């Protein structure tokens, strides 16, 4: 199968991107500045990310759709206000995570942002679960860009007036060049920022204007170091079908009201795990030295027993040291527990730590 290109491909080339294939797309891993510089620029200023490979699924419907979606997602969707977003997951009947996603209530129904590698399968699953009762569009005509970092609000507001009044995890329709764009105040870097859904024909123009105002293109390489420092999961590494939201330490994203009813896919397992605990759980891991422990690195306890594995590990430019997360047996998941990571045949000391590695408060918006 030929790899796809996003509508910003030419722009990426103009800015000397190095490309990698990711989920069937040619995506920029970095530009001429390099990952560390792009990472720091995002933390201190403003970075633009092309995330057009992700799925934008529009599902149209009213109250019946809300009821049907509540059978699928562990969310209190009937109380989700217009233009508000929630983080959630698509689970199988054993509560295994098939994808993690952001769902937003829009006027005509819902907009769900899906991972690129999962989107076609998610579409199939949801279509079956919803018994083809609703119009569903996995929109290939729209691009998605994120602008992240402390200067992003001002930069984007200079181009699209009014966005700085959005609250975190909420959105609205705005106009750019007389085109309707849907903007949410959200992101995946641990910084304040926005995600912008815009027609493929206008995304280059918008991106160039944002660059003119002082933002810079940032590749998938820095997106990975930023999200890992922020303690956020990457599907395929930290989340997959073998893991449940409780094991992934994401129970905060499950509605308490929905757990009490227990009528969504996977709820039996979720309730059982919430009551009885889990055998493995996702934790933050901080290596003591400078050695980077990457995914699949084995984790040992102080008696040299194998207790888990790293699922994401890299060098954190803002932390200025290695950072990782992974799954360990529950009894070794307490903060400050000493563990050992086997890298190139040698065991290196590390400790379990709380997430995120890098903390910055999300701006709530000027209304609050």
């Amino acid at each position: 199968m030929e790899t796809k290109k996003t509508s910003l491909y030419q722009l990426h080339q103009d800015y000397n991107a190095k490309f990698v294939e990711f989920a069937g797309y040619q995506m920029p891993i970095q530009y001429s500045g390099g990952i560390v510089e792009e990472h720091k620029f995002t933390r201190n200023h403003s970075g633009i990310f092309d995330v057009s490979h992700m799925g934008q699924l529009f599902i149209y419907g009213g109250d019946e759709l809300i009821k049907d979606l509540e059978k699928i997602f562990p969310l209190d969707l009937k109380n989700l206000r217009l233009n508000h977003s929630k983080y959630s997951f698509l689970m199988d009947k054993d509560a295994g995570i098939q994808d993690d996603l952001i769902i937003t209530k829009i006027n005509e129904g819902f907009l769900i942002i899906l991972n690129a590698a999962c989107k076609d399968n998610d579409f199939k699953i949801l279509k079956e679960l919803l018994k083809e009762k609703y119009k569903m569009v996995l929109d290939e005509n729209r691009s998605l860009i994120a602008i992240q970092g402390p200067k992003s609000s001002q930069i984007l507001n200079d181009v699209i007036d009014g966005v700085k009044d959005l609250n975190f995890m909420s959105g609205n329709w705005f106009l750019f060049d007389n085109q309707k764009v849907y903007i949410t105040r959200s992101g995946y870097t641990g910084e304040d920022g926005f995600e912008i859904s815009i027609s493929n024909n206008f995304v280059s123009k918008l991106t160039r204007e944002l660059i003119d105002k002082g933002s810079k293109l940032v590749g998938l390489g820095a997106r990975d170091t930023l999200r890992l420092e922020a303690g956020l999961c990457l599907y395929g590494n930290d989340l997959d079908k073998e893991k449940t939201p409780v094991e992934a330490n994401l129970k905060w994203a499950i509605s308490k009201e929905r757990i009490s009813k227990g009528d969504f896919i996977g709820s039996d397992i979720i309730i059982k795990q919430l009551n009885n605990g889990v055998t493995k759980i996702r934790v933050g891991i901080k290596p003591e030295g400078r050695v980077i422990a990457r995914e699949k690195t084995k984790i040992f306890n102080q008696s040299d027993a194998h207790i888990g594995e790293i699922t994401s590990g890299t060098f954190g430019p803002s932390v200025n040291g290695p950072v990782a997360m992974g799954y360990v047996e529950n009894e070794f998941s307490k903060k400050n527990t000493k563990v050992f990571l086997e890298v190139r045949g040698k065991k290196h000391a590390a400790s379990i730590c709380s997430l995120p590695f890098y903390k910055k408060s999300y701006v709530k918006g000027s209304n609050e």
Partner: protein
Amino acid sequence: MSEVKYSKEHEWIRLEGDIATIGITQHATELLGDIVFAELPEKGSKLEKDGTAGVVESTKAASDVYTPVGGEVVETNPSIVDNPSIINQDPENIAWFFKLRIKDKSEMDSLMSKDEYDKFAKETTT
């Protein structure tokens, strides 16, 4: 100034007497991206030609560093361990990796000259 030779694994080597100074090339650092970790051989350890001598890691991945000639490690450069970013800044000078007392100068013969290496690097990456 003694002649610098280059290996297909993107190391440079400068021989002065029987002491060889070894590092990775500018071209290698461009392929690797931002280097954030370096591991060096133990002082006193004996390395075989083309054997593993260390590791460098970028934000993206880990790569082995090989030694283009065999010998005993007489000195290593602690500054690249403490501050790996200097490898990107000045890979063929300040950011040398280790020095070997080489045992067989003829092992240098198969290595490339600067011109040969530049041509090799260009051909293998395009």
